[in-house]
């Protein structure tokens, strides 16, 4: 098996077996969404209106969950040093770790989103477009998060700092993700306009994320 494939399998195994991985993220997602009706009141019309925004926000918070441990565990047990010294380019290694993280935390959220959307009174069209925007947008969240995870790798209070430095950078993704979902549900903007910008944001972060994160790791580990 080639090194990148092996790394992907290893990372996914680790995140599924240790600490509940996928299930934990979905559970957190459900809890956050459940809290909202308690805060704003069980008004179904209102929930239907703000539903896409709530689901996007919950997905954003859930994608931060395992992020602070993404490089930190490898740093603690020394495998990060091995990855740094290996002949595989670090950018690719980082990108593969990002893909593994998205497959174990992002993808389950997208599968669960339509079910959880029922709690917020979303109709099938809304749930479909919401799942589509999440599918396109959550990789951007993961890959922007990679930068924060790499910067905070060796810090004692890395988790909190990670949230502070990553969340402002995710603002555009949140704006256009929710805008695309709302455009499909209520209009008046055509769905394509915000959706293509969301695609662009994801593609840009797929490039910038691994390079910036790899640079940060090299600097940290010197």
């Amino acid at each position, binding site marked *: 098996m080639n090194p990148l494939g092996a790394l992907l399998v290893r990372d996914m195994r680790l995140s599924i077996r240790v600490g509940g991985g996928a299930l934990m993220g979905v559970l957190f997602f459900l809890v956050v969404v459940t809290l909202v009706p308690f805060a704003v009141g069980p008004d179904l019309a209102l929930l239907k209106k703000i539903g896409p925004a709530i689901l996007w926000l919950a997905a954003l918070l859930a994608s931060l969950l395992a992020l602070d441990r993404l490089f930190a565990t490898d740093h603690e047990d020394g495998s990060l040093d091995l990855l740094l010294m290996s002949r595989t380019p670090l950018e690719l290694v980082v990108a593969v770790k990002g893909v593994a993280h998205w497959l174990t935390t992002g993808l389950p959220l997208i599968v669960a989103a339509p079910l959880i959307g029922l709690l917020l009174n979303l109709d099938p069209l809304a749930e479909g477009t919401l799942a589509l925007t999440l599918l396109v947008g959550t990789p951007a969240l993961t890959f922007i998060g990679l930068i924060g995870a790499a*910067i905070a790798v060796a810090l004692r209070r890395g988790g909190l700092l990670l949230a*502070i*430095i990553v969340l402002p950078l995710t603002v555009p993704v949140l704006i256009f993700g929710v805008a695309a979902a709302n455009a499909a549900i209520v209009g008046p903007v055509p769905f394509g306009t915000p959706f293509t910008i969301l695609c662009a944001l994801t593609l840009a972060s797929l490039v910038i994320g691994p390079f910036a994160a790899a640079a*940060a790791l090299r600097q940290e580990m010197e």
Partner: protein
Amino acid sequence: MTLTELANPSRFLAFANRALPWLGGMTVIAFAFGLDMAMNAPNDYQQGATVKIMYLHVPSAWLGMLGWALMSVAALGTLVWRHPLADVAAKAAAPIGAAFTLLCLVTGSLWGRPEWGTYWVWDARLTSELVLFLLYLGVIALWRTVEDPSRAARAAAILTLVGAIDLPIIKFSVDWWNTLHQGSSVFRLGGSTIYPTILIPLLVMALAFTLLFATLHLAAMRNEILRRRVRTFRLMQASAAS
């Protein structure tokens, strides 16, 4: 004097000590002229005297962005050339830039209340400026969390370069989206749309703000170098005692 010569901290300190009184003096003179011109500039025919907020709001917005741009150049200096003063410059610029950005947000919302009828709207210009402020706070938090200054410098440099994406978004937000905030009126194709009696005091105020930034930044850099010396002495003392 070249950048390489200034790399020596002692030489930089000597330079800073010589330059600071001059810069400070020029700042005071520029503010004296700028404030006087701003006070005597004509009121707007619609906005009345509230247009004077512009003389604080616009320069502080420019300086908030200049601060991040300066940090980005310094970040390149840290990562590419390992210039010893680059990370000092980046660290010193962060709180000053954050202060100017906050000033921009506060004066903007005080100006928005009488003219737009609200302190705050979530339009693209205001939101991207708020994100810039949050990015500043994130960088400052990062500087404070990492104990070793040179490691903190490299982590902050990468965050700074990633955050620099926000600068063109702020600049072009009024062109890309329909915002309540007005479009570009000073630096635009076809010349400024502001009448000279208002534009010239604004440019003088911008010069005064820039001089103030330079003074504060140089002083902050000097303090940071001294702080690092104190830290080194303390570490030496502690290791000698044990």
